[in-house]
């Protein structure tokens, strides 16, 4: 190792303290391991029944490992601040685009609350009580009022984990991550140590106990339903469906970017942010790859696609199927083991990862608003920091209130609210715009001084900056997702509505920007001063 050639004098200065493990933790938890594996399997295979989970996982891991790690790692390492992608996009692209995109992302974080807090209840808690043989409790939790009340409690607990400072959050995250991973490992080990014969026997035994369909009957009934819906149940995989499954797989691989909200506190940011992103993609990929292999071996290719269709497209309702839980992958593991402790840990894994997603909204949303407030693109109280807890408490409360409104709407109009695809908005807005910013980062004149001081400015392949290559790979991945998202049959009729919704949100963001520009101008403040370029010479 070369000798370090640098001298420092006695002067105040901080060494950042969040480690690579902490950065990884935030990125990994935002990938939502267990519920995201559920989405990839149930949503992915219900629509693209011929998808190959193993190949979709490998392709996603490679493309995200290159694209997301480089884009978010290099931008975060070059501008290690905790304001999210608003910082990058406003500096590299333009303040207006930065605000419009950021506005969309603020909505996204609220949308996650109203989707995921209820998911913690149903299927999370519902699954737990079904596994534990308490169907009455599970049925009660499925009612709109119960869903609203328990989801609201989840929302409130998530608020408490962040509003009192990041220390509580960081400590709790370690516990949640450990228990969540433990539960996921239990699921994997259950499948690993269950042969096909043992699984079929366990399924048939359970079916006999509950008067439900046997393994073969379930397959035949599901196939009939699929054909009635104009689908086929292929005996083997195909490339088109495999690429389509990657849309649902994006839940598991595209969300490590949350690290950007703590980038200002990570030590050795030039290494930790990029590696944190990479590991937060590779670790879920390892789990998903393992799960895919053992699922195909234990459950079977056709049966897995059939259960995914029943779980997602039919909402678990198949004539003759009377097992007490839905046939999702955790439910399939529950078929293979009857140990209450293992069942508890498996359901807990789903619940904890889901719950922590909600908590991460409280990490991101208040910081986004704080960054706007500092630029006067919002009321002054966005920047109020509570001296006792060192957090923007008012922003946290706003996040809670907006989340509550969303949860209430979701409890009543679940289908419509689910149709406003959060993923679609993120693909177009957050990921797409930021990938574009990364692609052109080395070539933008106004950001040149940031690029030249960046530790990655010398990273080149064939003369092309690595951040540009990463940006292009990321854009290709996002284009694949967007194409399949648009043509996804299950969401076809809602796609136009979603697109209008995205345009509306961007429009609101632009209106928000101009409103604050005009308002400040009236009192003699030129908002462009907040981020306008100053001549450097």
């Amino acid at each position: 190792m070369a000798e370090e050639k640098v001298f420092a004098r006695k002067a105040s200065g901080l060494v950042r303290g969040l480690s690579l493990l902490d950065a990884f933790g935030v990125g990994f938890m935002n990938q939502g391991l267990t519920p995201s594996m559920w989405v990839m399997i149930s949503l992915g295979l219900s629509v693209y029944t011929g998808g190959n989970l193993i190949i979709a996982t490998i392709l996603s891991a490679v493309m995200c490992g290159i694209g997301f790690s480089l884009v978010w790692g290099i931008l975060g390492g070059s501008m290690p601040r905790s304001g999210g992608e608003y910082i990058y996009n406003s500096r590299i692209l333009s303040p207006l685009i930065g605000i419009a995109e950021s506005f969309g992302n603020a909505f996204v974080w609220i949308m996650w609350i109203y989707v995921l807090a209820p998911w913690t209840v149903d299927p999370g808690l519902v699954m737990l009580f079904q596994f534990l043989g308490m169907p009455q409790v599970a049925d009660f939790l499925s009612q709109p009022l119960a869903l609203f009340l328990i989801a609201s409690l989840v929302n409130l607990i998530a608020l408490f984990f962040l509003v009192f400072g990041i220390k509580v959050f960081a400590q709790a995250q370690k516990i949640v991550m450990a228990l969540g991973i433990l539960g996921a490992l239990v699921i994997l080990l259950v499948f690993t140590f269950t042969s096909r014969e043992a699984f079929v026997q366990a399924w048939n035994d359970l079916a006999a106990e509950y008067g439900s369909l046997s393994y073969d009957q379930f397959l035949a009934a599901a196939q009939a339903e699929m054909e009635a819906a104009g689908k086929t149940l292929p005996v083997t995989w195909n490339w088109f469906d495999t690429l389509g499954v990657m849309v649902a797989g994006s839940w598991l691989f595209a969300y490590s970017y949350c690290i950007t909200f703590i980038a200002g506190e990570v030590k050795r940011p030039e290494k930790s942010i990029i590696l944190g992103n990479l590991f937060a993609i590779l670790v879920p990929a390892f789990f998903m790859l393992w799960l895919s292999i053992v699922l195909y071996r234990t459950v079977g290719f056709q049966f897995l696609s059939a259960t995914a269709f029943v779980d997602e497209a039919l909402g678990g309702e198949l004539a003759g199927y009377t097992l007490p839980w839905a046939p999702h992958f955790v439910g399939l593991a529950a078929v293979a083991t009857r140990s209450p402790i293992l069942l508890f840990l498996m359901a807990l894994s789903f619940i904890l990862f889901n719950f922590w997603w909600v908590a991460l909204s409280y990490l991101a949303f208040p910081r986004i608003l704080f960054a706007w407030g500092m630029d006067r693109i919002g009321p002054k109280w966005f920047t109020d920091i509570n001296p006792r807890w060192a957090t923007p408490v008012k922003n946290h409360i706003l996040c809670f209130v907006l989340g509550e409104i969303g949860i209430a709407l979701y409890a009543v109009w679940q289908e419509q609210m689910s149709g406003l695809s959060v993923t679609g908005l993120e693909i177009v807005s957050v990921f797409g715009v930021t990938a574009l910013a990364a692609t052109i980062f080395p070539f933008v004149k106004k950001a040149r001084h940031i690029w030249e001081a960046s530790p990655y400015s010398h990273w080149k392949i064939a003369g092309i900056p690595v951040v540009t290559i990463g940006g292009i790979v990321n854009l290709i991945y996002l284009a694949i997702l967007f194409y399949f998202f648009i043509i996804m049959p299950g969401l076809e009729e809602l796609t136009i509505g979603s697109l209008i919704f995205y345009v509306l949100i961007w429009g609101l963001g632009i209106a928000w920007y101009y409103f604050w520009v005009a308002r400040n101008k009236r009192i003699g403040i030129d908002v462009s001063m907040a981020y306008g370029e100053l001549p450097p010479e």
Partner: protein
Amino acid sequence: MRIFFVTDIHGSNICYRKFLNALKVYNVDVGILLGDLTGKMLIPLVEKAGGGWETTFMGRNVTVDTREELEKLKKTIENVGYYWTHLTPEQFAELKADQAAREALFKMLMLDRLREWIALADERLAGTSYRVYMAPGNDDHFEVDEVIEGSEVIVNCNDRVVMVGEHEMATFAWTNPTPWETPREKPDEELEPMLESLISRIRDVSTSIFNFHAPPYGYALDLAPELTKDLVQAADRRVHVGSRAVAKMIEKYQPLLGLHGHIHESRGVQKIRRTTIINPGSEYSEGILKGVVIILQKGKLKDYIFTSG
């Protein structure tokens, strides 16, 4: 009256030049550049056998082979607030072993850069109507005052009460103790009489400005990450590190405005009774000039906007 307030640029050439240019761009009447003015790192450009230079910059080993690359590297070093020096491998080894020589070299380079800054200001601001005030911070050696004093256009406001329009402004560079034992720091008990003495020179404290480098303890502008014994961030906890003496003075005298720096991460604004306290923060190492434009009208604070240029 419009004031542009900046703090903690720590030797960054690009930030200083932006500060001078900002006076016109932001259309202000007064510029205030509060310490810390000087940088923290010295980058030795060590000659390589067979030509070229090598060093460590931003945590990575850097090698340059041509003069053009070298000049570009020097400019980047200056822009992030660091200093550079040419050394042979033997000179580097000697300097590494000699702390006193390193400190002397550091001091020389710091003062040289500050002289360049003063000369640049004298050249650019001569004949303009801008009023510019400058003062050191706790990281700046005492010789810094003399260099500022040498300016024809910049006023060294350190430890003085000066008029900023119709407002009196008292400036104070010292801070309460830091873990780094910087040149201008004292316990709060010793700062208090110094501050009382300074404030006693103000005639109308209700319209005055406290331009104190240290932020007041216990409010939103002095939150810094908690440190371990090794001066590494404990990361997940922020603690108050400001001056209790400064807090006491603000609470006691309730000036119109408190301008503060020192804690780069605590960019923000807060109201303490009738006093508005502001810390514009600092991102000097990225070449970004963080500041705040303050509008005063009829003896009151009309508005403010944080800037990032």
